[in-house]
Structure formats: C-alpha cells, structure tokens
C-alpha cells in the first residue's frame, strides 16, 4: 500500500528523472521500509520522504529545462518548413484527459461566475442609472417644475425593484409615479426625484408613517388611534378584513423572503401574527392607519428604522416604467434654470466662503457648475455649506462635493451603496485648497437624504461642525415591494456597514453639533468661523 503511495508520489518528478531513477528510488523505498519497521521508524521514513520531495522535485524541474530537439534532421533549406519540438514524445493520454477536464472545469466555473456576478452588479446602462439613484425629493424652491419632471420621468424604472422612501416625513411622502395626480399639491407634497425609485407610494396628501416621530412637524397626522376625521381618512375607510389579511400575509412573506437577517425576520413576522391573533387589527378600516401601525410594530421588534409598510390612496402602478426622455429633458431644463440648485457661492466677511446648495444634483448634468462653485470658494479661509433647504439628490454629487474637503480618499458611509468603491471620495482634488480649512454645515429639519449623507459623514469624520436643527431622517434605502393596489412595503436589502454605529440617520436624523434655530444657523456659523480664524 505505502509502496503504491510512494510510486504515485514519484510521478511528481519530471519524466526524465522517473525514467532513469524511478525504479531505483522505488527500490530504495522498498529497502528502507523493509529495514525500518515499527511506528516510529516508518513515521521517520515518511517524514524523510516528504522533506526529500519538497527539496528535490523543484530542483529536478529546474534542471529539466527542455532541450530543444530538432525534429527535422536537416537545416532549413530555402522555404522548407522545419520546427523544433520541446520534447520528442507526445504527452500521455492521461495527461491529455486531465488537461481537457481542467479546461472544461475552468470554463464552466468562469461562466457561472460571470452569470451570477451580473446579478449583483448591473451592467446595463439603465440599471447603472438606478444604482446612482437620486435620493429623492426635490428642493422646495424648484419643486413645481421638478415635480412635473418627476412624475413623467423619474417615477419608476422597469424591471428593477424600486427603492421606497423610508421617511415618514411629510415632505418625503411621494406620490405614486403616475401623471395622474389630479389633486392639487400643497407646498408639502413632494415627488420623489429618484430616477429609479419611484415612488414612495403614499397618498398625495402626505401622511407620516409614524405620527409619533417627534422630529418632523406633521401637517396632517393620521394616527391609528385618532378618529378618521380627514377626508382622506374617510375615503380610506374601506379597508376590509380580506385586504388586511392579504397585507399581513404579504408582509410576513416579504420579511421572510427578503429581509437580510432571517432570525429577526422570523421574530418580527411572529410578532405581527401574534397581534393579528389577538385581534389588534380587527377594528382598523383606515389603510393609512393600518400601514402606520404595522410599520411601528415592525420597527418595535426589529429595531430597524428602514422597515416600513406604506399605504397609497392612489392605486400603485402594477409595473414600473423607466424614466422618459421628456422627463429627463425637463429635469435638465430645471437644473439649467436653477443653476443646478447652487443658489449662492460667495465670500463673506473675514474671507469665509458660503455655499448655499438646495439639492445634490445629477453630476452628469451639473458637474461643471459644482466645480465652478468650489473654484469660486477656493481661496476662502473657512467654508460654510448651507444645506438647510437641501432635500438630497445624487450620491455621486455628494461624493464630488465631499472630495474637496479631504487631501486623501475618505470613506463616506452610504446606507444605499452596495459597492465600496463608490463610497470613497476622489481626493485630493487638483488645485483645491479647501482640504484643511474649517467647514461648517448648516442643517435644518428640511435637510434630507443626500444632504444628510453629506452632513452625517462629515460629522462622523470630525471634518465639519454641524450648526442648526436635527435633520429630517431620510435614508431611502429600502427596496419597494408592491403588495396590492394600495399597499407596499420597504425592506432594506443592502448591508452597507456603518463604521460609526449600528443606526444611521434613518428616521432619527442627524443631530447638529451646535443646536440653534434654523434661522439663526448662518449667523452662528459665521461667528464660530470668525472666532476660529482669529485664534489661528
């Protein structure tokens, strides 16, 4: 048996060695194993053999560099084909079979990897666009125009699951992506700017999902316990037992199928089923209230503020469509008209730079505007970003702006991003002198999403002082699952690791370092900057 093993190991040597000394080596092995009987000696024998193999096999191969064997006997006379072969023998059939099998294996593995990989990294252009989705909600000032653009274009994308707005924010509440919204919008009702993302399906009169949320002012609270006084609530009072059942079943199924942590999914689902069994939902006839209650219960158990159930009074589209050409054109027109929402870029007294930015616009349209604004502020001794009316936008623009504030690539945590390479700033920016200047960011309760992404990371990196009020708390990371015409749910399906803490700014918002009223934030920041510059 052991002789067979050694004979097999001998095949590791190059063929010229095996041919000449294979038998001798085997003979030597036989002699030794005959003379060295017992556990310890045979163990020593094998140790010797392996050490010997490790040393001599590579050496033999080194010495076995092939000789060129002239296959054709004659020198090449004019034009006579002739060639050298490395060996004068053809490979063994076993070697050929092994070679074929290895190549096939490699080919199959590669094909599988290629097809599987495509699932996680969209290759097609539309899919890529989804990934770089806008956060959503347009700035209030450009709202009416954007709203139209949104409805038409950025509503929803085909084939790809949409990202729902996770906010319970009135302003974030989005209308379903359809150009049918006959209800006149009030100043609060916003549409998702999100290209991909559709729609955060909710009634056109935005309703907070979580009326108990202390941060956001709530224009029309629809608390589950409150009497359905509003017109919307009256209209909603047609939720019947069958639909309740359907929604609960779908929520439970979605949790189990899609939630990233299976144990929490099961616990959460069990809690909902327990509530159902206890009859907690029986009296509910208001869809929005039902959704709010479900959301609260989901979050109570899972402690995941990215989970939500949403109710839309307007029927949700049964399938999602991509952005239209007109919609994109309108967005472009609005951006041109609004200077890409870069409202002000100026130098204040004491050489303090001031940039008022009302969204983080699409970098493919607005990169040059953004760069021009930063160049205008390049010589400032400190810089103030005014994001008090910034409702978010494209992560790409967040990264572009943040790049100016560092002299080395810096990691910017984004709960929506799956890929790490999109989370590093392209710092340093050539010619930029702001990398080491003091930074102040003005925030308010109307600061959302992408603007929170910007503020949160600068705060965590201790790169900026945040001045103002706690922000809105919109992360928009959930994938949207349609349940029926009126209900859907958002489930976070990415596992971006937050290096700072378990929770991010979802729902709770980003707290300022210096808490002052939004209206006083600029004065406060200017004073802070002046005193800091004086100390230098």
């Amino acid at each position: 048996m052991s002789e067979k093993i050694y004979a097999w190991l001998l095949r590791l040597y190059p063929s010229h060695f095996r041919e000449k000394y294979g038998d001798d080596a085997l003979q030597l092995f036989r002699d030794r194993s005959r003379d060295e009987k017992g556990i310890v000696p045979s163990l020593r024998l094998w140790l010797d053999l392996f050490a010997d193999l490790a040393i001599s096999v590579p050496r033999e191969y080194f010495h076995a560099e092939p000789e060129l064997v002239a296959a054709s006997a004659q020198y090449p006379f004019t034009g006579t084909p002739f060639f050298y072969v490395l060996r004068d023998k053809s490979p063994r059939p076993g070697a050929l079979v092994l070679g074929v099998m290895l190549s096939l294996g490699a080919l199959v593995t590669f094909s599988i990897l290629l097809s599987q990989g495509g699932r996680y990294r969209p290759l097609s252009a539309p899919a890529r666009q989804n990934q770089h989705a806008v956060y959503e909600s347009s700035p209030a000032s450009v709202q009416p125009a954007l709203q139209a653009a949104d409805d038409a274009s950025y509503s929803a994308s085909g084939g790809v699951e949409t990202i729902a707005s996770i906010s319970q924010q009135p302003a974030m509440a989005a209308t379903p992506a359809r150009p049918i919204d006959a209800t006149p919008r009030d100043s609060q009702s916003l549409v998702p700017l999100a290209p991909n993302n559709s729609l955060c399906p909710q009634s056109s009169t935005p309703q907070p999902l979580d009326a108990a949320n202390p941060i956001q002012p709530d224009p029309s609270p629809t608390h589950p316990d409150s009497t359905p006084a509003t017109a919307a609530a009256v209209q909603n009072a047609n939720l019947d037992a069958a639909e309740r059942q359907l929604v609960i079943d779908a929520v439970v199924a979605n949790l189990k199928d899609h939630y990233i942590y299976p144990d929490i999914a099961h616990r959460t689902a069990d809690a909902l089923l327990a509530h159902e069994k206890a009859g907690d939902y029986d009296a509910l006839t208001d869809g929005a209230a039902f959704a709010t209650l479900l959301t609260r219960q989901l979050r109570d158990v899972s402690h995941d503020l990215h989970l939500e159930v949403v109710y839309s009074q307007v029927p949700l589209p049964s399938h999602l469509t991509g952005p239209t050409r007109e919609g994109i054109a309108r967005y472009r027109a609005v951006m041109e008209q609004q200077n890409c929402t870069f409202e002000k870029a100026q130098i204040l007294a004491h050489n303090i730079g001031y940039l008022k930015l009302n969204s983080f616009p699409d970098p493919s349209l607005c990169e040059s505007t953004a760069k021009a604004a930063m160049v205008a502020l390049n010589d400032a001794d400190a810089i103030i970003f005014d994001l008090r009316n910034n409702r978010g936008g494209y992560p790409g623009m967040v990264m572009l702006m943040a790049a100016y504030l560092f002299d080395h690539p810096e990691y910017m945590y984004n709960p929506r991003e799956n890929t790490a390479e999109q989370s590093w700033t392209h710092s340093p920016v050539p010619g930029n002198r702001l990398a080491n200047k003091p930074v102040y960011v003005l925030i308010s309760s109307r600061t959302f999403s992408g603007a929170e992404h910007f503020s949160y990371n600068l705060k965590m990196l201790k790169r900026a002082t945040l001045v103002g009020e706690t922000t809105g708390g919109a992360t928009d990371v959930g994938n949207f699952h349609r349940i029926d015409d009126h209900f859907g749910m958002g489930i976070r399906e990415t596992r971006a690791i937050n290096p700072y803490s378990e929770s991010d700014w979802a729902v709770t918002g980003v707290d300022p370092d210096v808490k002052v009223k939004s209206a006083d934030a600029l004065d406060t920041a200017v004073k802070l900057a002046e005193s800091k510059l004086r100390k230098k």
Partner: protein
Amino acid sequence: MPKRKLDPLPSAAFQILLSLVGEDLHGYGIMREVEDQTEGRMRLGPGTLYSSIQSLLEAKLIEELDQHEDAKLSHERRRYYRLTSAGRKLACAEAQRLADLLRVARVKKLLRGEYV
C-alpha cells in the same frame, strides 16, 4: 539542460563521494553509508540521492558499473557506483579545504583539540 552545480560541492554530493571511497555501492548502500558516517544526521531521500548521483555522473566524478558481482547473484537489478579518479581528487581537495577551515577554527580557539 543546465549543468547541475558542483562548485561549491554540495554537502550531499561530498558525502556520497566519501561513502564511495572504500567500496562500490548501490543507491541504498550509499544512503546507509552516509547515514553511518554522519552518525544518523543525514539520511538522503531518494530524490536528493539520485539527483546528486546524476550530477556526479555528469561531472564524471563517479561512474556506473556495468554489472556488479552481488547483482549477478541476486535477481534484483541494482546500479552500483564507483568513485573515479577525478572524484577521488575532488573529495581529497574538499576534505583538505575543510581541514584548513578546521585549523583556522582551532587557532581562533573556536574548537579545542590538538590535531589537524
């Protein structure tokens, strides 16, 4: 094929030359002799042994015997090796070199002893 290096003489090759000084041996015999003369410290494995033998053959320091008397008696076909005069000369030179080294070591009081 690149020539195997014997300059400086590897320790395994020198041991093989030494083992063949007294008598002609086959592979296993060489291995045993080397083990004896190093007091068990060096046990040449088949790969190292035959690869060294090959180098020594190529350098004509040892030669393969056509047929050894012992082999004629047994049925096993074994190759026997004998030291050539060049091999003997090289083994002497190497031993001399080591002796010189040893002398230096003694002068520097690294080793005790009067001889060599």
